[in-house]
C-alpha cells in the first residue's frame, strides 16, 4: 500500500487540508453537547432567556461553520482520490504495455482487467475515506471520551469500559461474518456457472433430455447459496442489537451514577444529558470505524494485487532504442540451436536450427502442442529464447529496438480479433498514414475487398469490439489485410486461415504469392493443403524439428509428415503432382 504513495504526491495539499477541515468540523460537533449542558444548567436554571438565545445562536453558527469546513474536505477528498485513481490507472496501463508475453501469460487477461478496474477503484475509495473519515471517526471516539473526562473523570470510567466492549463486539461479529461473504461469492459464482453452462449447452441438454437433472443440480447449489446467505445474515443481524444494548447499558450506568454524583453535588443534571449524548456519538463513530476497517482490509488486498503488477519487470527488454544497420543480403530469418521453455514447464522447443532465405515461402506444420506458434513468436521477440539465438536480416533479434524489429514483421495471430472502430482505423494499425489505395490492395490480397466493398460504409464501416459483427472467416481475412497494409518484409500467418473454406484459402495463397513477391511468408498450419506448395516446409513434433524440405521430399522421407498427410488427404491426392 505504501509503495503507492508516490501517486499521492501531487495531492499533498488536499491530503493535509481535507482531514484538517474534517477535524475542525468534528471538534465543533463535540462542543454541541457541552453547549446543551450549559444552556440547561445555566440558562434554564437561572431563567436567563438571553443566555439561552445567545448559546443557541452559537450552536447554529458552529453547525454552519462545520458544514463549510466539511464541504472543503469533501472537495479535497474527491479531487485527491479520483486524481490518485486516474494516475494509478494510467501508470498501470503503461506498465502493462511494457510487459512481455510471458508476464501477460502468467497473469492472464481477466486478472489484469480486474486489477486495473476493480482493484484501483477500491484503492480510490480507500483514499477518499482516508481523507474523509480516518481522522474524523476515531477522533470523535477519542474526543467524546476526552469531553466526558472534562465533565467528570469518574463518570468517564463508564466510557472507558463501554467503548472497548463495543469495539470488541464489532470486531467479533465482523470476524465471524466477513469470511462468509467470500463463501457466498463462491456459491453465487457456482450458480452463475451452472446457468452459463445450461445456456451454452442448451442444445445438448435438450438433446439428451437432461432438463430435470440439470434443474436438480441447479436447485442444490441455489439452496446452498440461500442457506449461506441466511447464515451470514444471522450473524450480522446481531451487530446492531448487541452494540445498542452495550451503549444503552452504559447510559443506564451514567444515569444511575450520575444521580449519586448530582446528589453529592459534583455534577449537574444538564451534564448527565451531555454524557448521554457523548455515549451515542461514540456508538455511531465506532460503527463508522468498523466499516472503515472493512474498506481498508479490502484496499490492502487490492494494493497488493496492484503492486504485484508494478513489481513485475518485463523479461524481454529493449537493448537500445536506436535503429541498427541491416545486411540486405542476409537470410530473412535464422534460428541457431534455439531452445525455449515456458516457465518451468520443460522445453517447448528443443535445439532448433534453420534458415529462411529472403523472399521465400515457408510452411510450418505439426500437431497441437508441437511448438509451431511458440517458434514464430520468437521471431518478433515476443519471448526471448532460453538457449540459442534468433537472427533477422543477419542481426540478433536482441540487438534491435522493438519498433525496428516489429516494423519489419507483419503478424497475423491465431485468434482473429479486430478492435472497436472503423475498418479504416483497424487497417492503419501497422501504418498510421496508410492511404486508401494501400488499404484496398491489402484487402484485395486477403480476399476481403469483395465483402468490404459491399458494406454500405465500405472502409468506414464500424467493427464491433473483437470484430464480432463479422463472421469468423471475414475476420481472419481482415486481420491478414491489417498485417499486409504496412507491406512488411516478413509476414507470419499463425494458423490464420483455419476458418476459410478451401476455395477462399486457395485464392488467398495465390494472391499472396503473386502480389507480394519480395515478402518472406511464414505460414503455420494444421492443414497440409495450406502449406504443401511452400518452398520449404518445417515439420515439428513435440518441440523438435523432425523434417525440412519440400512436400514431396518430406512425404517420402519424413514419417510424421506422411502420417499428417494421410490423415487429411487420400493417398492419390497426396501423390497427385
Amino acid at each position, binding site marked *: 500500500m505504501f509503495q503507492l504513495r508516490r501517486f499521492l504526491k501531487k495531492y499533498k495539499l488536499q491530503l493535509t487540508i481535507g482531514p484538517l477541515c474534517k477535524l475542525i468540523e468534528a471538534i465543533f460537533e463535540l462542543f454541541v453537547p457541552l453547549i*446543551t449542558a450549559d444552556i*440547561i444548567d445555566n*440558562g*434554564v436554571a437561572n431563567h436567563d432567556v438571553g443566555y*439561552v438565545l445567545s448559546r443557541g445562536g452559537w*450552536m*447554529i453558527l458552529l453547525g454552519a461553520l462545520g*458544514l463549510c469546513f466539511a464541504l472543503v474536505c*469533501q472537495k479535497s477528498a474527491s479531487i485527491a482520490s479520483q486524481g490518485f485513481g486516474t494516475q494509478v*490507472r494510467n501508470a498501470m*496501463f*503503461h506498465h502493462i*504495455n511494457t510487459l512481455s508475453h510471458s508476464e501477460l501469460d502468467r497473469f492472464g487477461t481477466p486478472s489484469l*482487467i480486474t486489477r*486495473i478496474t476493480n482493484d484501483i477503484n477500491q484503492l480510490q475509495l480507500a483514499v477518499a475515506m482516508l481523507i474523509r473519515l480516518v481522522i474524523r471517526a476515531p477522533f470523535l471516539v477519542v474526543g467524546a471520551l476526552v469531553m466526558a473526562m472534562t465533565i467528570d473523570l469518574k463518570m468517564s470510567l463508564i466510557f472507558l469500559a463501554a467503548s472497548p466492549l463495543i469495539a470488541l463486539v464489532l470486531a467479533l461479529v465482523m470476524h465471524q461474518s466477513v469470511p462468509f461473504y467470500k463463501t457466498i461469492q463462491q456459491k453465487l459464482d457456482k450458480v452463475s*456457472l451452472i446457468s452459463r*453452462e445450461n*445456456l451454452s*449447452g*442448451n442444445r445438448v441438454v*435438450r*438433446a439428451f433430455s437432461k432438463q430435470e437433472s440439470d434443474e436438480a443440480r*441447479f436447485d442444490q447449489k*441455489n439452496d446452498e447459496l*440461500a442457506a449461506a*446467505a*441466511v447464515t451470514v445474515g444471522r450473524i450480522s443481524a446481531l451487530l446492531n442489537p448487541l452494540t445498542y444494548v452495550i451503549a*444503552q*447499558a452504559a447510559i*443506564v450506568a451514567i*444515569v444511575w451514577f450520575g*444521580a*449519586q454524583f*448530582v*446528589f453529592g453535588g459534583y455534577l449537574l*443534571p444538564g451534564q448527565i*444529558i451531555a454524557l*448521554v449524548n457523548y455515549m451515542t456519538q461514540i456508538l455511531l463513530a465506532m460503527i463508522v470505524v468498523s466499516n472503515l476497517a472493512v474498506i481498508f482490509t479490502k484496499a490492502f488486498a487490492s494494493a497488493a494485487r496492484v503492486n504485484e503488477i508494478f513489481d513485475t519487470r518485463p523479461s524481454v527488454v529493449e537493448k537500445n532504442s536506436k535503429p541498427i544497420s541491416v545486411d540486405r543480403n542476409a537470410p530473412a530469418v535464422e534460428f541457431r540451436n534455439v531452445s525455449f521453455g515456458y516457465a518451468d514447464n520443460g522445453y517447448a522447443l528443443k535445439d532448433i536450427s534453420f534458415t529462411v532465405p529472403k523472399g521465400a*515461402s515457408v510452411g510450418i506444420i505439426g500437431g*497441437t*502442442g508441437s511448438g509451431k506458434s511458440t517458434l514464430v513468436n520468437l521471431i518478433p521477440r515476443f519471448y526471448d529464447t532460453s538457449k540459442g539465438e534468433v537472427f533477422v536480416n543477419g542481426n540478433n533479434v536482441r540487438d534491435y529496438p*522493438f519498433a525496428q524489429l*516489429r516494423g519489419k*514483421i507483419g503478424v497475423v*495471430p491465431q485468434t482473429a*480479433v479486430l478492435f*472497436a472502430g472503423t475498418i479504416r482505423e483497424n487497417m492503419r*494499425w501497422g501504418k498510421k498514414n496508410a492511404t486508401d489505395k494501400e488499404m484496398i490492395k491489402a484487402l484485395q490480397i486477403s480476399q476481403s475487398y469483395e465483402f468490404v466493398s459491399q458494406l454500405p460504409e465500405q472502409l468506414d464501416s464500424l467493427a464491433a469490439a473483437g470484430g464480432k459483427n463479422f*463472421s469468423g472467416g471475414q475476420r481472419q481475412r481482415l486481420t491478414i489485410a491489417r498485417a499486409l497494409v504496412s507491406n512488411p518484409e516478413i509476414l507470419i500467418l499463425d*494458423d490464420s486461415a483455419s*476458418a*476459410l473454406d*478451401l476455395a477462399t484459402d*486457395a485464392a488467398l495463397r495465390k494472391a499472396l*504469392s503473386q502480389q507480394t513477391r519480395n515478402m518472406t511468408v511464414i505460414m503455420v498450419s*494444421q492443414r497440409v493443403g495450406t502449406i504443401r*506448395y511452400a518452398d520449404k516446409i518445417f515439420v515439428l513434433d513435440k518441440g523438435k524439428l523432425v523434417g525440412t524440405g519440400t512436400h514431396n521430399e518430406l512425404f517420402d522421407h519424413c514419417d510424421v509428415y506422411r502420417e*499428417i498427410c494421410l*490423415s487429411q488427404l487420400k493417398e492419390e*491426392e497426396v501423390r497427385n503432382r
Partner: protein
Amino acid sequence: MSNQAKSTDQSTVKRILHYVSPYRPQLIGAMIFAVCYVALNLTAPILIGYAIDHIIEEKNVDFSAVAQLSLMIGVTVFACAIFQWLMGLCVNSVSYFTVRDIRKEIFRKFNAVPLRYIDGHPHGDLISRMVNDADAVGDGLQQGITQLFSGLVMILCTLGFMLLINVYIALVVVVITPLSMFAAAFITRLSQKMFREQSKTQGEISSYVEEYIGNQKIVRAFGYEETSQHHFEEINARLCACGQKSQFYSSLANPSTRFVNGIVTAAVCIVGSISAISGTITVGQISVFLTYANQYTKPFNEVTGVIPQLQSALAGADRVFSLLDEKPQQPDGQESVEMNSCKGQIDIENINFSYTPPKKLITNFNLHVKPGQHIAIVGPTGCGKTTLINLLMRFYDVNSGDIKIDGTSIYQIKRNSLRSLYGMVLQDSWLCNASIRDNIAYGKPDASLDEVKAAAKEAHIDTFIERLPNGYDTIVTEQGANLSQGQRQLLCIARVMLCSPPILILDEATSSIDTRTELKIQEAFRQMMQGRTSFIVAHRLSTVREADVILVMKDGNIIEQGSHDELLSKGGFYCRLYHSGENISTGNMPVSVH
C-alpha cells in the same frame, strides 16, 4: 411519474409480493417485530428523561425512582434489542428465500423457452438477470422492510410521542426536519446526472481495457502501445473529471444532514429551554426531545436513501419478469407418442422455414432418407448448415411442411423421446463441469463404469483418460479448458456411443485438432456411422464423396442436392466448390517463383 408507469410499478410490486407470499409468516413476523422494536426504541429515551427529572440538584435526588426507572430502561433496551434481532432474522429469510425461488424459476425458464430465445439473447444478459437483477430484488426487499417500513413507523411514532410531550417543540422539529429531505433530494438530483455520466465512462474504460489488455499480443506485434496509452489516458481523464464531480456531490449528503440535525438540536434547545424556563416542560423532557430530534431525522434520511435502491429493485424485477413472461415452447400434445427406437427412415416433406419470417430461408424442401443412408451437408462458412440440425431435432419448428421418422411426424412425438433417437456431436464440444465419467454417462446416468469404459474405448479416448492422474474421476473444468478441443470432441463421441441412438448428427471440426486426434475422430465417426442414418456437416472431401446424398447450402438455402457424381455432372455450385478444392489437390495453383 406518469400514471402508466405507476401502474406497471404497482403490478411489479404485486408480482414481487406473490413471490414473497410463501414466506408470509416471516414477513408478518418481521413487521410485528419492527413495530415492537420501534416502540421500545422510542420508550427508552422517555424513561431516561423521567430518570433525569428525578435528579434535580444537589441533595435532591429521588433514588428509588431512579433505580426503578433504570431497571425499566434496562428491560426495555434488552427487549428492544431482541425484537430488532428477530426482525433482522425474519427479513433475511424472506428476502433470501424469495431470491432463491425467483432464481429457481428463471432456471426452469431457460429450459422451457424455445431455443430461438436463447439463441437470440446474449447469454451474459440472461445470466445478469439471474445473478444481479435477482440480487437487486432481494436487496430491495430487505431495505424495503427494514429501512422503509421501520423508518415510516419510526417517523409516525416519534411524531406521536413528541406531540404528546409538547406540541410546540414537536412543531419546531416537524417544520425543520424536512429540510434535510429537501437537501437530500436536491443532492440526489445533482449527483444523479453525474453518476450516469460516471458509470457510462466507467463502462467505456472497462471495455477499452478489456479490448486492449485482452489483445496485448496484437498491440505488441503492431507496436501500438503509445497510441493505445494515449487513448486510454484520454478516456481516463474524462473519467477523472466526472468522477470528481459525482463523488463530491454525493459526499455532500452526510455533512448537509449533519447540518440540518445541528439546526434541529439548536432549535429544540432554545425552544425547549425557554419552555422549561416558563415551566411548561421539564429538563428531562428536553433530553427526550434532543434524542427524538436525532431519531426523527434519521429515518427521513434512510427513507430517502433507500428510494434509489427500491427503484433499481423494481427495474431488476421488471427485467426478471420480462424473462419469466417469455412464452414457453408449445407443450407436447395430448396425443403425442413415445418412440423408443426406429429404423431411421426420414422423410422431409415440402418444408418451409425462416428464422425471421419475411426473409425466406428454406423453401419447399424435400428429402427422403432410407435407413442407414449418410447425408453430407456442405457449403461455405456461415451458410447456415446448423439450420437443418435445428429442424431435425425440433430445436426450431418448421413454418410449414412435415418431417417424418419411420412415417411418424416428429410433431406427433414427445420432444424428449424424439431427441433420444438422435446422437449429436457438435463442433463446439460442450461438456459440463463434472467428472469425465459423468460426462460420458450424461445421456444414461445409470450406466456402469464398465459401460462407460467401453464407450470411451470405442471413441479411442480410453488410453488418454487412464493416463490422467484421476482417470475417469477427473473433473472437466469450465467449458472443458483442461482438455484439448480434439479430446473434448472424442468425449462427446463417447457420450453418444453410450446411448447408441439410431440416427446421428455430426459436425466435422474445421481446424485446430492435431493430426493424431483427428485420425482417431475420423475412425470413431466411421465406426459410429455404420448402419445408422447419419447427417454430417462435412469439411473433408473424403467424407463428402462417400455420402449417399450431398446437400449443398448457400446463404441458408439448400441450393443443390444429389450424389457426388450427379452434382459434378450438373456443373453447379458444388462443382465449382469441389474444383476449387481439387485445384489444390491437383497442384494447379501457381507457386511463387523466387
